[in-house]
């Protein structure tokens, strides 16, 4: 089957702010209304509504898609919330694409919202619960760990200079100075400022990180059948791709995001892009951390592995460079209300490819761009390729039938496309809602009618066959693994199924208690962002003789002496103190030390 061609025809967003006065519903409405206004459509013209928003633990509402639905314009309409963690903001654009491409809907309203400020005492605390419930959460990991671990691995593998990475944060915060919605635009920031900022979890420093934010973004998608009635300048979705890697993230080499490559290849194939470095004119890769933008540019096949930092240093990624990257200012500059920030990238390409980005406009006449987001445990890639020309290879009629009855359409959509496109409305620039009203910390604390709740969410997870057995092994001072005879791998943490072969694994085996440090961090903050007296040394440790590895902490070593490749061994708690827990291993220490 082939589907309908799909165009972006409108976009709008709120300001991104640290603490919004509005409710999440109100933020969603402000962005959605701005997007509809930008192309002079009404809610009655919308056939389906798509929502992307990240964990419920941010806004603090169970089933928050249901809660936000009215603000998204979903009343009386087909509405679905999709969810791929941090990748949700670009993914919801993909959701909008397949909703329209399916031939079932002509106009889809695509909304992304996040209200992270609700989460107390610090939104980072919600991230504790993204880690494995049994094997990782007892270590009290901070979200920064995984970024620091990945960044260190990346820097180590290619011998990268932190300055070249910091240059990304500088570029994006400077770009954001031109964005009317930006939270952290700063025209005069320098690499020295980034390098001098507080070290949170080495090598991650405060200015390497995008800020906690509230905000919403919306775009309007239309089928080829109606796009020409809405605008003479549709921006076409030429290709989409998404990909999810294994949850066993400590089994992967974090040096390269294969899932982004897979997603990009899927999107490029659909878009007919065979030489992305020539055919992509502007990029909006996901930049929650500065190194991530570089990592993702490599995954997007826009630079060789390990070579994006050079491009950063040489100005290739600047707005006037050969490959403008995050001309919006990205998450580092505009802000990071998770899903909204992802959809902002699609909105930015819409404005850039129409030549409407104002002070942010990249030079020349860009004809094709790529937006990308990332999420989960270094796992998800979501990619959308957009361009000024409709895609080849797709289009034409999807299966007959299945189309929803048009709702209360405005006259413009009911009539044929005008002969003179100049008679169509001009998109208002900038299509920025009045919304995203910032509150100070004090204003947030004293807001009239504000309430606080602590959710009563308690669990007793069944650890199942694999992890129950593994925990018993730990209690007896052994590390147990499962073997798969088909791919001949030895799996730690163990699972009863092989994810690569999709078959049951074959047998238990006792494995070594020694391993190698794949990557590590020196972390100065607790899981909920309280300063630590003594830094912690989280590390990914490859267990010798296996194809796996695990997350744990290093001990009996000075932070200055830790290095990637260090040989380590498990140090167990005394037998009587073990409870069948990952904490039965007290820590890993350098092998052979007294």
């Amino acid at each position, binding site marked *: 089957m082939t589907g309908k061609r799909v165009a972006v025809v409108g976009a709008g967003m709120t300001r991104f702010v640290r*603490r*919004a*006065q*509005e*409710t999440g*519903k*109100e933020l969603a*409405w402000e962005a*959605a*209304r701005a997007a*509809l206004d930008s192309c002079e459509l*009404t*809610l*009655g013209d919308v056939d389906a509504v798509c929502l992307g928003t990240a964990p419920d*633990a941010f*806004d*603090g509402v169970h089933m928050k898609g249901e809660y936000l639905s009215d*603000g998204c*314009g979903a009343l009386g309409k087909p509405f679905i919330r999709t969810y791929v963690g941090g990748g949700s903001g670009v993914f919801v654009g993909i959701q909008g694409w397949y909703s329209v491409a399916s031939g079932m809907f002509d106009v889809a309203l695509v909304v992304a919202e996040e209200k992270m*400020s*609700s*989460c*107390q*005492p610090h939104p980072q*605390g*919600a991230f*504790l*619960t993204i880690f494995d*419930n*049994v094997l990782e*959460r007892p270590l009290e990991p901070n979200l920064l760990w995984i970024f620091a671990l990945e960044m260190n691995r990346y820097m180590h593998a290619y011998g990268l200079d932190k300055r070249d990475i910091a240059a990304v944060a500088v570029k994006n915060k400077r770009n954001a100075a031109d964005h009317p919605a930006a939270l952290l635009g700063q025209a005069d920031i320098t690499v020295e400022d980034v390098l001098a900022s507080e070290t949170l979890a080495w090598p991650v420093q405060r200015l390497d990180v995008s800020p906690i934010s509230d905000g919403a973004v919306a775009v309007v998608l239309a089928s080829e059948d109606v796009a020409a009635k809405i605008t003479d300048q549709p921006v076409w979705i030429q290709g989409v791709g998404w990909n999810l890697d294994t949850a066993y993230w400590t089994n992967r080499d974090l040096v390269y995001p294969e899932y982004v490559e897979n997603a990009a290849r899927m999107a490029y194939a659909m878009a007919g892009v065979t030489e992305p470095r020539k055919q992509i004119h502007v990029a909006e890769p996901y930049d929650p951390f500065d190194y991530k933008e570089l990592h993702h540019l490599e995954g997007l096949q826009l630079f060789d592995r390990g070579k994006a930092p050079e491009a950063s240093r040489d100005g290739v990624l600047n707005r006037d460079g050969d490959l403008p990257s995050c001309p919006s200012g990205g998450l580092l500059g505009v802000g990071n209300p998770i899903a909204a920030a992802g959809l902002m990238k699609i909105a930015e390409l819409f404005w850039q490819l129409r030549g409407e980005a104002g002070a942010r406009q990249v030079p020349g006449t860009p004809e094709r761009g790529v937006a990308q987001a990332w999420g989960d445990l270094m796992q998800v890639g979501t990619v959308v390729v957009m361009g000024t020309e409709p895609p080849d290879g797709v289009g034409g009629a999807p299966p007959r039938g299945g189309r929803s009855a048009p709702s209360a359409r405005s006259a413009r959509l009911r009539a044929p496309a005008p002969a003179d496109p100049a008679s169509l409305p001009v998109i208002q620039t900038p299509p920025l809602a009045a919304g995203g*009203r910032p*509150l100070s910390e004090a204003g*947030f*604390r004293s*807001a*009239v*009618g*504000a*309430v*606080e*709740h*602590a*959710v009563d*969410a*308690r*669990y*007793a*997870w*069944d*650890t199942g*066959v694999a*992890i*129950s*057995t593994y*925990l018993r092994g730990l209690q007896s001072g052994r590390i147990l693994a499962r073997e798969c005879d088909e791919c001949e791998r030895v799996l730690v943490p163990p699972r*009863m*199924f092989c994810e690569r072969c999709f078959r*049951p694994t074959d047998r238990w085996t006792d494995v070594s208690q020694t391993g190698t440090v794949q990557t590590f961090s020196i972390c100065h903050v607790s899981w909920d962002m309280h300063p630590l007296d003594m830094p912690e040394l989280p590390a990914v440790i490859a267990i010798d003789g296996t194809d796996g590895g695990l997350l744990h902490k290093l001990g009996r070593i000075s932070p200055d002496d830790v290095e990637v490749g260090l040989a380590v061994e498990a140090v167990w708690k005394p037998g009587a103190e073990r409870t*069948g827990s990952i904490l039965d291993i007290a820590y890993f220490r350098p092998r052979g030390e007294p």
Partner: protein
Amino acid sequence: MLDKLTDPALVRRWGGEIPVRHRYTPGLAGEAFFTALRDRGVLLGSRCEACEYIYVPCRLFCERCFAELTADTEVGPGGTLESFAIGYVDVEGEPLDEPVTVGLVMPDGADAVLFHFIVEQGEEPLEIGMRVEVVLRPPGERTASILDIVGFQPAAG
């Protein structure tokens, strides 16, 4: 299919929770509603001209047509009981010491309902369609909360 645990003693459960709390601003419309409730003891609503629908509490936007709304309409204090239910269990299903009655009340002049307690019922059984009126906390005790409303009681006479 997978190998299973055959010794019941090996079945293991691991406890945990989601250790966060949340602070919610009531938003632009919510601030107007709660300020009016606290300071003036009135129920504030919003009228959508296009939809001919009056929301209560007031709203920033019409969920039906997306029009921007303002807090322009006072509703109540009397109203009609649209439904009610009598609770015998708490949030986790444990028995309550005293049953609690909740209702849906459409304040006079509104098209929407308020979800709240039904109080001071007296001898007469509740009936859907009966007249009720709002009971507020005394002015000095109001904190700009939905609990500034004690509940609704059957209307006198």
